[in-house]
């Protein structure tokens, strides 16, 4: 590890610069704002899954001492609609209730206690409509419509990707397998629940501090929904206490801004408790997935068919885009000549689903990688050998008909896995017999596309300033939700400018101070902003060197070098402190900005403009292979992950410590997804409300993890890197599923693999069922 005063260099394991304030308890998260003795805001939620709003009785609430105001849709001057693609979600319900968590009335009070009392006294008069909670039922033409204005009924979006002649290809197959998989909702369960703080300033600007991944998009959404001037809304985005996609999209923002504009001169705070976060926060989509795959007599993967059904809940949120990414990834990193993949994103009266690390891919990959094992077994091949035989290489046409471009390390990942000591250890682990335990090993390949796809501009603007103190300040407009991209920005700029950490400063996203950068999501955060920052830092460096060269009247700036805190004239050894140099520049000379737009695919595997808008196809992918060794207790059905290895191709590594954090953290979330996390919703009503019923992996549930990397250079990436935030999430569920199947000799198609399901699968008298 490097000391904090050595110059920042790409590739070194620098401790994150934000860690110090965090271990001291000094980092101020959105939830930590109590500035100006704020009022408390909270919402009354519908509590029923489907209905028509008749009346809101607020009188009793208004009599509670300490209540400042009670607001409803009538107090909203703007569109009262928010959403990323389809603006279908009201800030406060004005006509229809579409899920239990729909906010109907907003209360602002002097204290939390008064707020709670007042919320209990609001009575809602809602005409109950039949709730639609089953995915297939929702698609039935006779089902009640959730959005009457949506032309396709309850079908939010669908898409088909087709290549070759699937039906005929299946005829040609000697080996065929098929199955339905059921993947559950997953709760983000970030430790910092949705939180924010807002105030209406004297000049009419609403300043909003929020735990968000998307400050710039929030600003536009809030302004539109509430009828405010865009430039009268300022969003400040501190470090998030976790987000994972759940803060990609509005949570508290519009409600807080609405409260603030009705309470001039007072700050307002909103902080959902855990139960509210379960009820109203977005989830990973529940999914039903059908796969059929076939191989020829010689064991060549020949045909694939898939049908993907995603339950997006009451609103689009990002449900269409999530579905499209799943659709695009449904063929995995394999050469498959014939494929047909259909995907459906379906409105229901269930809780809203949206972005969650992996973004639709953990579901499809969870199913696909198990189908690959099933097919390999049917064709008499080992899981690794079967994958090595079919894994894509650069220049191949992938399963959905798109040319594989950019660095492509899936083969190298597989090679690294089988040559590793961990893989041998895993086989030895399996070979050891223990009474009342069964052991198994499973693998899964992963791939994950980066960025927004071909249509939505994937753009970031970087800004860097040489301050008169001699420090370089990076204005980072893309949120750090915990992944450490802010620290990586400093490392990138420090590397270019040859500075150490104490000589770097950081401004976190703030729509007033930083430039628009898009979201912290889609594995694009460091890639897109990093590329912009490289250009900005290089421009500033050049300007500084030129200026120093001219000042010293040397023939050209190549004689001048930036060193920590100074510039040095190499032939003479003469130096000037950066603080002094900075004073000679005027303010605009000390600043450099740059813009970067991520490259897009020029191929058209699909003509459907809706699918292109929703992101198909991507052009840069990260890859990996995961291997899990599990132990199943034959008496209790408990599954323990004992061994884990992930080999990842995320391009070149800028900071080994940070990528390890990303991969390990994703594995832990994936272990929870595979084995223990289950959001229970009954006819649209959330039954899971706390961490005693939603069991997150604790330190005893996650094993030591081995991580290895295939550091191929991605030409388009900043210093050769590719996104690492999501790819690790796509592997654990199928690797563990395959390992459990290997251990008990039966496959389970409903997740998570709870002890009851495992016991039932082991019992020869009980059927696990192939169909849902």
């Amino acid at each position, binding site marked *: 590890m490097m000391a904090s005063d050595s110059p920042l260099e790409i590739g070194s394991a620098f401790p994150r610069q934000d860690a110090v304030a965090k271990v001291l308890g000094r980092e101020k998260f959105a939830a930590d704002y109590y500035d100006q003795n704020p009022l408390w805001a909270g919402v009354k939620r519908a509590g029923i899954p489907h209905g028509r709003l008749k009346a809101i009785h607020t009188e009793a609430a208004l009599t509670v001492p300490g209540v400042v105001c009670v607001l409803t849709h009538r107090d909203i001057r703007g569109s009262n609609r928010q959403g990323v693609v389809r603006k279908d979600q009201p800030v406060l319900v004005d006509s229809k209730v579409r899920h239990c968590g729909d906010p109907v009335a907003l209360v602002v009070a002097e204290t939390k206690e008064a707020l709670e009392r007042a919320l209990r006294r609001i009575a809602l008069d809602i005409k109950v409509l039949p709730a639609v909670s089953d995915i297939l039922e929702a698609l039935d033409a006779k089902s009640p419509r959730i959005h009457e204005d949506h032309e396709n009924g309850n079908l939010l979006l669908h898409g088909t990707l087709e290549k070759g002649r699937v039906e005929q290809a299946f005829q040609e197959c000697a080996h065929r397998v098929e199955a339905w998989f059921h993947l559950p909702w997953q709760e983000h369960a970030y430790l910092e629940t949705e939180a924010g703080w807002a105030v209406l300033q004297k000049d009419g600007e609403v300043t909003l501090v929020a735990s968000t991944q998307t400050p710039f998009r929030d600003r536009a959404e809030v302004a539109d929904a509430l009828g405010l001037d865009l430039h009268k809304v300022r969003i400040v985005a501190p470090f998030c*206490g976790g987000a994972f996609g759940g803060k990609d999209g509005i949570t508290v923002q519009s409600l807080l801004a609405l409260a603030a504009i009705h309470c001039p001169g007072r700050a307002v705070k909103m902080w959902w408790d855990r139960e509210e976060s379960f009820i109203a926060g977005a989830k990973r989509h529940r999914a039903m997935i059908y796969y059929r795959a076939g191989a020829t007599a010689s064991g060549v993967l020949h045909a694939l068919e898939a049908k993907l059904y995603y339950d997006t809940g009451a609103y689009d949120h990002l449900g269409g885009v999530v579905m499209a990414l799943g659709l695009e990834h449904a063929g995995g990193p394999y050469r498959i000549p014939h494929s047909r993949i259909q995907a459906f994103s379906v409105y229901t009266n269930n809780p809203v689903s949206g972005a969650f690390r992996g973004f639709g891919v953990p579901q499809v990959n969870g199913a696909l990688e198990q189908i690959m094992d099933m097919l390999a077994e049917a064709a008499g091949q080992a899981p690794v050998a079967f994958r090595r035989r079919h894994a894509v290489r650069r220049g191949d046409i992938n399963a959905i008909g798109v040319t594989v471009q950019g660095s492509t390390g899936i083969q190298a990942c597989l090679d690294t896995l089988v040559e590793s000591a961990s893989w041998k250890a895993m086989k030895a682990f399996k070979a050891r017999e223990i009474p009342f335990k069964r052991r198994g090993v499973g693998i899964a390949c992963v791939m994950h596309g980066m960025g927004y796809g071909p249509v939505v501009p994937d753009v970031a603007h970087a800004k860097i300033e040489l301050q008169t103190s001699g420090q370089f300040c990076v204005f980072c407009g893309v949120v750090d939700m915990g992944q450490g991209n802010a620290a990586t920005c400093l490392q990138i700029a420090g590397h270019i400018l040859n500075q150490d950490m104490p000589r770097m400063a950081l401004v976190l996203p703030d729509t007033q101070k930083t430039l628009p950068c898009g979201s912290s999501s889609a594995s694009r955060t460091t890639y897109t902003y990093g590329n912009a920052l490289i250009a900005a830092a290089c421009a500033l460096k050049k300007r500084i060197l030129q200026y120093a060269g001219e000042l010293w009247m040397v023939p050209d700036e190549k004689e001048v070098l930036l060193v920590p805190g100074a510039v040095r004239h190499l032939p003479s050894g003469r130096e000037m402190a950066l603080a002094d140099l900075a004073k000679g520049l005027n303010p605009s000379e000390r600043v450099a900005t740059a813009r970067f737009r991520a490259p897009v695919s020029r191929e058209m595997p699909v003509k459907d403009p809706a699918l292109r808008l929703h992101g198909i196809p991507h052009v840069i992918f990260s890859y990996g292979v995961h291997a899990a060794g599990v132990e199943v207790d034959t008496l209790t059905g408990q599954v323990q992950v004992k061994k884990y290895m992930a080999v990842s191709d995320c391009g070149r590594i800028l900071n080994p410590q940070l990528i390890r954090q990303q991969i390990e953290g994703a594995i832990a979330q994936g272990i929870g997804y595979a084995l223990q996390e289950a959001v229970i919703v009954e006819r649209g009503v959330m039954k899971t409300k706390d961490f005693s019923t939603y069991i997150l992996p604790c330190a005893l549930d996650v094993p030591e993890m081995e991580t290895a990397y295939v550091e191929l250079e991605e030409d388009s990436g900043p210093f050769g890197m590719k996104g690492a935030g999501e790819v690790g999430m796509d592997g654990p569920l199928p690797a563990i599923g395959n390992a459990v199947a290997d251990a008990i000799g039966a496959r389970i198609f409903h997740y998570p693999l709870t002890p009851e399901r495992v016991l039932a699968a082991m019992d020869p008298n009980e059927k696990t069922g192939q169909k849902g």
Partner: protein
Amino acid sequence: MNISFHLNGRPVTVRVPSGKRVVDVLRQDLNLTGTKEACGSGECGACTILVEGRARLSCLMLAVQLKERHVVTIEGLASGGLLHPVQEAFVEYGAVQCGFCTPGMILAAVDLLKRNPLPSGEEIREAVSGNLCRCTGYARIVDAILAASRRMARGKKR
């Protein structure tokens, strides 16, 4: 009601309802927001503080229970401008991501090391099993606590 106790080495008196939760007293009345709240029901450990040196969940304690006690929050752990060895190890070993579980996790570790100065990895996992972290997967946290324990043991010998 007036409640007097020792907070991070200094006597303090707060005027709060006796039934107010300690986590709220710390965060709202004393502006010590390093103590986090992530569940409010004793299930996550984010609100951990040290009371008489032992890790306690401040979301389950009432203000009146602080009376005459010695309390340490994350803000009071570093001394003389130096990080506590557990804090230092958390930074160095990459045990911090979003950082929202970090204060509670560190204080749980400090409590453990006081009772068991050289714990095994398994003992560490057991001891922090009530502290949830959604970001790290725990491996770096366990490593950091192990490293801190060794460093502290060496420091004592000297």
